[in-house]
């Protein structure tokens, strides 16, 4: 078996992973990134809208600064975030955007003079300042006080990913693509690499490292309808859950995006609303301003998704063979804007829907989009539970997003966190000596080989991997969606527990030779069901509504009892439920909990605490 040694192993070659890799490589360490696909195909490249940083160059961003960005982020999180981390993030984001410009990102730049823009379907005029000419431009996004979202047309993720991957190539960071990490090498105290499966040959390979980072992105594919790529399946999270000692943070915090297209759930960017697009109902009437007079379409995603669902429940949805939906209207933005700044949207509509958004309405509905939860880390990105294990990006619960993340804050997080945590990893590596315990490595490889053989021979049973996966997805969809109730969640947990039993009895129908996609799916299924249970059980226990977590039977945000972060462990493999523990959401409080200024405002104050 092939063994690869490196100082720093990064599971994931998206923006977060590659940014951290660059930082460690520049400090002189050897770095290998693993990825299921060539780095540039990582989901980071699908982000269209942009990245938030308070540069304040645009006239509509005047007066912006890290303090305002920080406040927006904390409000956006519905006070569920770690404020120390949010502060670190807001302060660093402008530097990182400028650094990206230096590395080659073709940010759209300020063009001085008069131009028009739209808000709530109405036309306005703005004048960009002469002295800002050529600086990085920004656009508007939901939940932000200022225009703060830096962008390159609507291919921001793609452009930044290209630049980052170029930088990796320049700095000698190795990317082993078509490689899937399937288990952590660890002794319950320290992590020293992974066992991976080569997706060119199907062979197992060992990677030994002094520091290991999980930067594997989100895990939306455990839901049936999601904007996420098919590789966002939580495989790397399942490795951490499998250790029993690494907790997942806030798994019940799941974001739904207002504008997935119907029926394929491909995302059209929030930039559509940011640039002035409106939401219409079956009568082609606007409705968001009725519910949110102040922010209307530009309230945060959790709020807009909820009102959309509410409006459809009230009977204003458009009926279709794929269920009800609403309309997104960008026609008034005009052909030039739509085929220029929103070109990807134009292409998605024409290629996947056969709809021409210059003249026609786009069918949309809220759909699963982002996982605020993930591998819980401290502010240095070090995972709880294992030394030498780090996490960054969407895979992590570093926790600047709390219970809802703002558009444009995730892509910015990948590079900001990647940079900060990459430096922390380099510091860790400076003083690090590791012994690789060969016995442990052999045991783990043996265990993985045995799992594979059992799946191929059907030793544990003959459940169909795709059917069990569908059962898991359906249970989450029904029970742990935008609106949640005790009854629905209890049913969801019970169905997932049933799926867990079935997942342990999966047997392959194909021969399992070589790359074999059925085997890849089967290897992670049991872990995926455990992740799903962490979501559903965490949501059942959290008897309040906060950000994206919305309990109809507990509509108030309850700061008295729930200003906490959930930590979910799977302590023993044979457990049938996760073990939940709680910690304070934040230990540093710059902004005490208050009204967000949009969304519901029922709050049970922390001051109500009985002594």
């Amino acid at each position, binding site marked *: 078996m092939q063994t690869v040694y490196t100082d720093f192993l990064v599971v994931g070659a998206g923006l977060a992973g590659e940014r951290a890799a660059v930082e460690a490589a520049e400090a002189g360490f050897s770095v290998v990134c693993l990825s299921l*696909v*060539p780095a*540039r*195909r990582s*989901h980071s*490249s*699908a982000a269209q809208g942009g990245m938030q940083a308070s*540069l304040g160059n645009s006239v509509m961003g005047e007066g912006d600064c890290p303090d305002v960005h920080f406040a927006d982020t904390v409000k956006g999180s519905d006070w569920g975030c770690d404020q120390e981390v949010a502060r670190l993030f807001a302060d660093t984001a402008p*530097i990182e955007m*400028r*650094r990206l*410009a*230096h*590395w*080659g990102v*073709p940010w*759209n*730049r*300020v*063009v001085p003079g008069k131009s028009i823009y739209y808000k709530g379907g109405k036309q306005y005029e703005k004048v960009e300042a002469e002295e800002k000419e*050529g*600086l990085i*431009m920004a656009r508007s996004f939901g939940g932000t006080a200022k225009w703060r979202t830096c962008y*390159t*047309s609507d*291919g921001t993720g*793609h452009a930044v990913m290209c630049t980052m*991957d*170029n*930088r990796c*190539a*320049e700095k000698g960071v190795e990317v082993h*693509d*078509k490689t899937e990490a399937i288990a952590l090498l660890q002794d319950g105290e320290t992590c020293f690499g992974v066992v991976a499966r080569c997706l*060119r*040959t*199907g062979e197992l390979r060992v990677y030994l490292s002094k520091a290991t980072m999980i930067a594997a992105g989100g895990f939306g594919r455990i839901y049936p309808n999601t904007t996420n*790529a*098919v590789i966002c399946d939580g495989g790397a999270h399942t490795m951490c859950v499998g250790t029993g000692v690494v907790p997942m943070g806030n798994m019940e915090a799941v974001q739904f995006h207002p504008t997935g297209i119907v*029926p*394929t759930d*491909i995302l059209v960017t929030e930039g559509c609303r940011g640039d002035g697009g409106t939401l219409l109902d079956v009568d082609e009437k606007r409705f968001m301003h009725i519910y949110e007079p102040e922010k209307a379409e530009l309230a945060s995603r959790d709020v807009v998704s909820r009102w959309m669902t509410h409006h459809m429940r009230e009977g204003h949805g458009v009926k279709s063979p794929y269920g009800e939906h609403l309309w997104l209207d960008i026609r008034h933005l005009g052909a030039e804007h739509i085929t220029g700044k929103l070109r*990807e949207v134009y*292409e*998605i509509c024409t*290629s*996947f*829907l*056969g709809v021409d958004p210059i003249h026609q309405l786009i069918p949309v509905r809220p759909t699963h989009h982002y996982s605020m939860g993930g591998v819980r880390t401290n502010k240095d990105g070090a995972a709880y539970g294992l030394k030498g294990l780090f996490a960054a990006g969407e895979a992590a619960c570093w926790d600047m997003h709390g219970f809802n993340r703002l558009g444009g804050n995730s892509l910015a997080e990948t590079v900001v966190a990647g940079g900060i945590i990459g430096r922390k990893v380099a510091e860790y590596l400076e003083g690090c000596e590791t012994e690789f315990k060969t016995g442990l490595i052999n045991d783990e490889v043996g265990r993985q080989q045995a799992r594979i053989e059992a799946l191929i021979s059907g030793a544990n049973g003959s459940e169909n991997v*795709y059917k069990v996966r569908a059962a898991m997805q359906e249970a989450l969809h029904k029970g742990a969606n935008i609106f949640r109730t005790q009854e629905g969640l209890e049913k969801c947990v019970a169905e997932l527990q049933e799926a867990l039993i079935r997942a342990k009895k999966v047997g*392959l*129908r*194909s*021969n399992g*030779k*070589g*790359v*074999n*996609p*059925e085997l890849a799916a089967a290897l992670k299924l049991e872990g995926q069901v455990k992740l799903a249970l962490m979501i559903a059980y965490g949501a059942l226990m959290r008897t309040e509504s906060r950000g994206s977590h919305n309990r109809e039977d507990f509509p108030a945000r309850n700061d008295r009892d729930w200003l906490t972060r959930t930590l979910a462990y799977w302590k023993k493999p044979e457990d049938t439920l996760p073990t939940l523990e709680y910690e304070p959401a934040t230990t540093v409080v710059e902004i005490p909990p208050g009204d967000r200024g949009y969304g519901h405002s029922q709050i049970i104050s922390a001051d109500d605490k009985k002594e």
Partner: protein
Amino acid sequence: MSRLLKLNIFRYNPEDELSMPHMQEFVLEETDSMTLFIALNRIREEQDPSLQFDFCCRAGICGSCGMVINGRPGLACHTKTRDLPGEITLLPLPVFKLVGDLSVDTGTWFREMYTKTESWIHTNKIFDPTALEERMDNKDAVAIYELERCVECGCCIAACGTARLREDFLGAAALNRVARFLIDPRDERTDRDYYEIIGNDMGIFGCMGLLACEDVCPKHLPLQNQLGFLRRKMGITSIKRLFRK
């Protein structure tokens, strides 16, 4: 009544000693808004779980799903079955190394390309985290992004006669990459530096100019213009070099 689609799919698993390259037929009922992404996944889940193919974003933005669809390289997620006849033939992209069935190794090919073209900004300036960003004309930014939109799907390489004949031919995607850096004011390389990379038969002078590449590019990159632009630029550079000698 919806159509029954007949899909003829190339099958070969190099890791299975019993596997021989062959075409296999699958029959599938067409549904509303069906794309090849939906069709292939259904075949895998319902008929043959060993079928290998690559999809990632399923939204036409990552470039994973390049394959030869009824004789023409294209993105499978982007392809609606209703635009195809009832009989569909799917083959893996040529030029790239076969992984199995419809899956090929584009990653290794493109990674080598980055090294050959030194696909990064060459500059002696050092980043100063305390300074304002360096200014850039928005027109330049837009022009660079226009070329950076390549998703590395490999369709242009697979369609290129020269690339099929000579393994060391850089191909349209690589030449487009060079053009991207050439027009970037931040990159301090000179025409002569670029000439070292592409001023030969592996580069711009190997191109026959038949433009199959631009025809198949799913992102509609202006490959033809870039090839012309580079050919003129490198032609001039080569004349200058002659005179200098």
